[in-house]
């Protein structure tokens, strides 16, 4: 990460670059809980039909594995996506708030205490 000196800034403390927030790994001040993502639980639907997040009457094509509720709920955009599938959680920025675990209808994210 770049060490910013006073002279590096422009008028009004403006940073003359885009996307510099990525350099600041804010996951370093995460709470003691870390989300653990279970890919299988997310994508292989074994829950009873009444818990279907898409309210499908049967397991048709409209069934959405990777429902993305965690992705849309995460306040720090830490849910990593690739090719339309959730891959896991970016711990460089995750604060451990646990919203993803609460939002997941399939219990695919559990919060693990870390000492």
């Amino acid at each position, binding site marked *: 990460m770049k060490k*910013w*000196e*006073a002279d590096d*800034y*422009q*008028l*009004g*403390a*403006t*940073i*003359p*670059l*885009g*996307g*510099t*927030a990525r350099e600041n790994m804010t996951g370093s001040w995460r709470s003691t809980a870390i989300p653990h993502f279970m890919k299988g639980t997310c994508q292989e639907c074994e829950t009873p039909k009444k818990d279907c997040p898409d309210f499908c009457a049967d397991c048709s094509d409209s069934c959405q594995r990777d429902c993305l509720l965690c992705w849309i709920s995460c306040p720090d955009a830490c849910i990593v996506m690739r090719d339309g599938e959730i891959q896991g959680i970016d711990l460089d920025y995750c604060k451990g708030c646990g919203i993803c675990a609460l939002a997941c209808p399939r219990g695919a994210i559990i919060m693990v205490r870390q000492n």
Partner: protein
Amino acid sequence: MRLNPDAKQAKKDKSMTAKTKGKVTILTGNQAIAEAMRQINPDVVAVYPITPQTDVAERLSSFVADGLLDAEYVPVESEHSAMSACVGAAAAGARAITATASQGLVYMQEVMYIASGLRLPIVMANVNRSLSAPINIHCDHSDSMGARDSGWIQLYSENAQEAYDNIIQAVRIAEHQDVRLPVMVNMDGFIVSHGTEVLELLDDKDVSEFVGEYEPVFSLLDIERPVAIGPFDGLHGHFFEHKMAQVKAMDKARKVTLDVGKEFASLTGRDYGFFEEYRLADAEVAVVVLASAAGTCKIVVDELREQGLPVGLLKLRVFRPFPSAELVGALRHVKVIGVLDRSVSPGLDGGPVFAELRSSFYDMETLPKVMSFIYGLGGREFKPQHASEVFSSLLSSSKTGYLGIRLR
């Protein structure tokens, strides 16, 4: 009707130096500043109405609705939002203007520090009004004096003409590359804002040429050059260094204010510096005063001069940056100085102008006597008799204090 002595003088000066012929008309102070803002033609106007500024908000929205002002008018729901909208607009690279008064200015203050810290050259008209409680809608300078440390340049206007001229000059001062700080133009509530005066307006074309095209340093909308504006300074960041840059910019605003004043004088014949000296050169006692009360004092100065008394006046126009050295230079020959403050700092002996002016003299070898007078709080009338009282106090170096207060 008593003719403003300045107007006569301005007319005389104008015939000698002015390049353009303005249009003489009759307007209230509020109409005058709304007209100046229309002629400046900003990109964004975000105003919330508040007495005694309401007229400005109404006129600006009418101008936009009638197609006379090509600006985005943001009908915000509060002054906090008005200033926030201006900050956002200015950060996006737009020329932004607002106007407020009193409680509205206080409500803006959180965002005013952000405007100056981000070095956004926003121009604001503040129609001076007292602060509650008790609730009062009339003039004093408590509102703008409360914002004196917010990093805004502050100009004060004696009459509608000066308010109009100051608004136009404010754009150039704010947007100057050495400054890039917001500017607040103050005008006395009701006394000037609702008083009808004869004044001279510039042509739209002349104002347009004088203020020029605004070129932002950064724009959030410039996708070729992405920037982050207003980021967190970090736990061990450079807040102090950024504040120092702001302090230096405020210092540079001194020269820029004078340069812009000179250029404006060559256009209009109306000369603007840090202050106006009125029969001061050979005065032994003098008052220092801001804004409309200067007019009342000038009449009394003339009367006392006719009686052979060595009295003079200094009307301060630029309060931030405070022109300490120049004030000392202009007043060093005066034996007794009376400072008239239209705001009060309970617990401090004297108002803000008094405290700062007297402090400016501290390093001088021979010190004048500097006396504090508080007047006109909550619009309490300041009459020639009060100015006479001040001058007799100064001539006898006697009592100081509060003018026109009703005692039981």
